[in-house]
């Protein structure tokens, strides 16, 4: 049985049975990265030495029959927006090209406590701004299913790493769909937990009221296990919610009786690719055959979602990124004439064009005289969107939709038209605006062989239900077993 492509559960049981060591397993993934990543470009940093050391340490403890964590010896790839102590964390930006954090993000501490192996840092859109992983200052990540296409974004590196068999698990972050959309594009499982479920401490902020860290895996069980490890209260994040974390991995295989699957009529709009729509309808048939009830609901404010998101996220970003001023750390221009020029030149050189575009959008929206018309209005509509979902979830357990209206784009397709790229976020941003958990599971392929994802959303803190519903679908379909042929 191959190591590459195996699920997390399979790998763990082989490790536990002593058929495999973590060093062997980690070496296999490191070899895979060495062989394939020059084509995929999923990684920015491969943490070879430390990963092998962690693996050897787990092996030693396992052999000595000492207690080990939930992810003992399993490699996890980390989106380069999550701070790793002593390991470069760049946010795929020239601004932080040499930034080495003096501390671990909360989720990294959780991974270390679970004895996971930190295999490397993955590529992303610069500061998580983008939907294609093309705005990275360092490299363009390719979709393992079609190297001419993007893996989606902004967590494209993490999605591609799992899809290409370079890591069984990965962490991403999701501000407007940045986990679920690339998961769909790469035919892997990706989940965004409820806002507040996972501590944001040590995640470099993009849109603080929307950002959430979540798992990628090649099956729902792997995602459940990784979600369980990273979730939980952390006193260092004031928005982290103090509620017990259910053992997702224990319940994920239990099917849900009387499941009510919702679809929103506002989701069937112009611009939805017919093959993607057909994939969704087929998925609904699968649920029906499993005994679920399909219900149509209404989310009347759906059409405002993109506009609201592209006011709130850039506004917060314009403020969050003000700290990159070249004074204390990060890129500082070599030449400048005075203090203001030092700021302007350092930031001008350090940020790429998509980041600059969003900083300008946000700065404008927060300016005196515009604040009420843009930011404040957006907050009000955000509340209405949240109410739409609250009402919908009184009638349904999960809401099904495509993860994205179209299959993965070609590299460079959106470079001249960022607005078209923004509109692709229509299905995913609602969950961020409303703070809901959402998951994307592989749901098939277009005729051209491009992956399509099924997105399920649930009410706040209903991750357990979400994972079980996703697992029901996964077990009833053949998509999970398919691997990109590189």
């Amino acid at each position, binding site marked *: 049985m191959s190591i590459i492509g195996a699920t997390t559960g399979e790998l763990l049981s082989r490790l536990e049975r002593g058929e495999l060591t973590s060093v062997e397993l980690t070496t296999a993934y490191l070899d895979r990265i060495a062989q394939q990543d020059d084509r995929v470009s999923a990684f920015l940093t491969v943490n070879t030495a430390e990963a092998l050391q962690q693996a050897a340490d787990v092996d030693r403890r396992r052999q000595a029959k000492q207690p080990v964590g939930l992810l003992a010896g399993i490699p996890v790839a980390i989106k380069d927006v*999550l*701070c790793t102590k002593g390991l470069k*964390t760049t*946010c795929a930006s020239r601004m*932080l090209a040499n*930034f080495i*954090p*003096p*501390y671990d*993000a909360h989720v990294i501490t959780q991974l270390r406590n679970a004895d996971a192996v930190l295999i490397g840092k993955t590529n992303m859109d610069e500061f998580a701004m983008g939907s294609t992983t093309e705005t990275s200052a360092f490299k363009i990540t390719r979709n393992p299913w079609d190297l001419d296409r993007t893996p989606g974004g902004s967590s494209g590196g993490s999605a591609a790493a799992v899809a290409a068999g370079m890591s069984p698990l990965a962490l991403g972050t999701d501000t407007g769909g940045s986990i679920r959309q690339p998961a769909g594009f790469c035919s892997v499982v990706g989940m965004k937990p409820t806002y507040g479920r996972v501590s*944001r*401490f*040590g*995640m*470099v*902020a993009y*849109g*603080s*009221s929307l950002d959430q860290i979540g798992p990628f895996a090649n099956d729902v069980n792997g995602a459940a296990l990784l979600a369980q490890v990273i979730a939980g209260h952390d*006193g*260092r*994040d*004031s*928005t982290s919610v103090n509620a017990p974390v259910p053992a997702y991995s224990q319940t994920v295989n239990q099917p849900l009786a009387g499941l009510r699957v919702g679809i929103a009529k506002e989701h069937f709009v112009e611009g939805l690719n017919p093959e993607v729509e057909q994939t969704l309808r087929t998925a609904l048939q699968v649920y029906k055959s499993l005994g679920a009830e399909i219900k149509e609901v209404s989310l009347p404010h759906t059409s405002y979602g993109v506009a609201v998101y592209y006011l709130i996220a850039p*506004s*917060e970003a*314009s*403020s969050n*990124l*003000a*700290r990159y*001023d070249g*004074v*204390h*750390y990060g890129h500082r221009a070599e030449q400048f004439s005075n*203090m*203001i020029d030092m*700021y302007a030149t350092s930031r001008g050189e350090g940020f790429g064009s998509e980041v600059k575009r969003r900083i300008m959008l946000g*700065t404008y929206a*927060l*300016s*005196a005289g515009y*604040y009420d018309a843009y*930011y404040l209005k957006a907050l009000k509509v955000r509340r209405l969107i949240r109410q739409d979902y609250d009402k919908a979830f009184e009638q349904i357990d999960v809401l099904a939709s495509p993860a994205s209206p179209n299959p993965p784009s070609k590299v460079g397709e959106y470079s001249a038209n960022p607005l078209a790229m923004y509109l692709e976020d229509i299905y995913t941003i609602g969950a961020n605006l409303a703070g809901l958990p959402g998951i994307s599971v592989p749901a098939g392929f277009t005729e051209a062989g491009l992956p399509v994802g099924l997105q399920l959303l649930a009410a706040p803190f209903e991750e357990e239900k979400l994972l079980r519903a996703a697992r029901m679908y996964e077990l009833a379909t053949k998509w999970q077993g398919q691997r990109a042929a590189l």
Partner: protein
Amino acid sequence: MDYTTIIGLEVHVQLQTNTKIFCGCSTKFNPDNPNVQTCPVCLGLPGSLPVMNRHAFDLAVKTATAINCQIARFTKWDRKQYYYPDLPKGYQISQYDLPFSHDGWLEIVINKETGEKKKIGIIRAHLEEDAGKNTHDETGRGHDSQVDLNRAGTPLLEIVSHPDLRSAQEAKEYLEELKLLLTYLEVSDCNMQEGSLRCDANVNVHIHRDGQKIATPLVEIKNLNSFRNVELAIEFEADRQYRQWQQDGMTFGAVLKETRGYDAVRNITVAQRTKENASDYRYFPDPDLVPVTIEEAYLQNVIDSMVEFPAARRTRFIQQYQLSNYDAAVIIDQGVVFANFVEHVAKICGDGKQACNWVTQDVLREMNDRKLTIEGFPIQPPVLGEILKRVNDKKITIKSGREIFLNLLNSEDLSTISVARIDQIIQEQGLSIVADSGQLEAVIVGVLAKNAKAVADFKGGKQSAVGSLIGQAMKEMKGADPATVRELLLKKLAE
């Protein structure tokens, strides 16, 4: 020159917490070791997040309650955005449109003799984080500026007054009363040298001309680092505005608010260059912090645990201890420790007025002469109270009391100062008042018998002869009250 000066003050007070407002770093004043009291949060490193220090919030609510502010039931944090090297995140976490408190007042005494008071309105008090400190090369050689972030994130309470102050003197009184209150509340040490209390003054003048009132443009004076400088700067600025108006006739609203710095060496205010884009801070709610809701029980607890305010204590002292406005102010204005000292002494000796007199005269004089603080004064209330108690109980005379007081104060070994030592001195020096008039009479009769010449001199009209007689009687009975001795002696002589 007929104008009225109109002043509003913005006071920034560092709250006395052990740790910073949004992280666990120490708030200790430590200018000699820059950037040692820092962490990812107050350095603004990527991914760091603020967590509110509850104690800072408690102190802020306590202060706002004490200055009679309305406490909001819902308050939130906002980001005030501007670029400056001492501001590591590119924004300051502050409070914009929903400060935790608003609409209060502070009463100041504008005449110490009459005790006449005036209420100064408070617009709002809000919490924010302090910035770091920039040090610029002043040699003129163009070296790099340096940034120390030890102070960054220290909790700061900003108290904004209405423009109710009408003279530099009133502004100084307001600051002194506010400082006194804050130190009574133990919410800040208000050390201006260390920057724990900072003040900006908004000043203009109303010129009275032909029954009209003409207002000059508003000026904000910064860099005021002592109460004296606040007073001097306002006096200078009011006069400058009047002269400026005579020259250009500019009135309020004709130009934007100007920022001027006070130059203490030359005693002038100087126009400052405005900060780049300072007009638009792009305030918005900080998404990293949750809003704070305040419950009635919490507020009641703040009110219930409040100490007596200086103003209330002043009034009480006047009534309870029959003090003048002036004397009461002298005690209260020395600070809470001093006032507590007085009350402690009063409680032991049972005579408030006596305690006040002693502490404000004898103790204060010796403190000043010996350069001591009230905390470090060698004779603390338990001992001083017992000395005065003996005076009150007529066991010793006031004069003996002072002798014992000085005797103790001059002890070679200060640790020997105790109540037991008081009685020992009384014993050793025979300071006990002889209350038994029979015994005293016997002594006097004896003295008269032994000094027939002096008696004869006195009876012959030489008044001064009585002095030596009293002296001798006192010598034989150390603790005797001189007045009593004199009275009894004259009575005997008259017989």
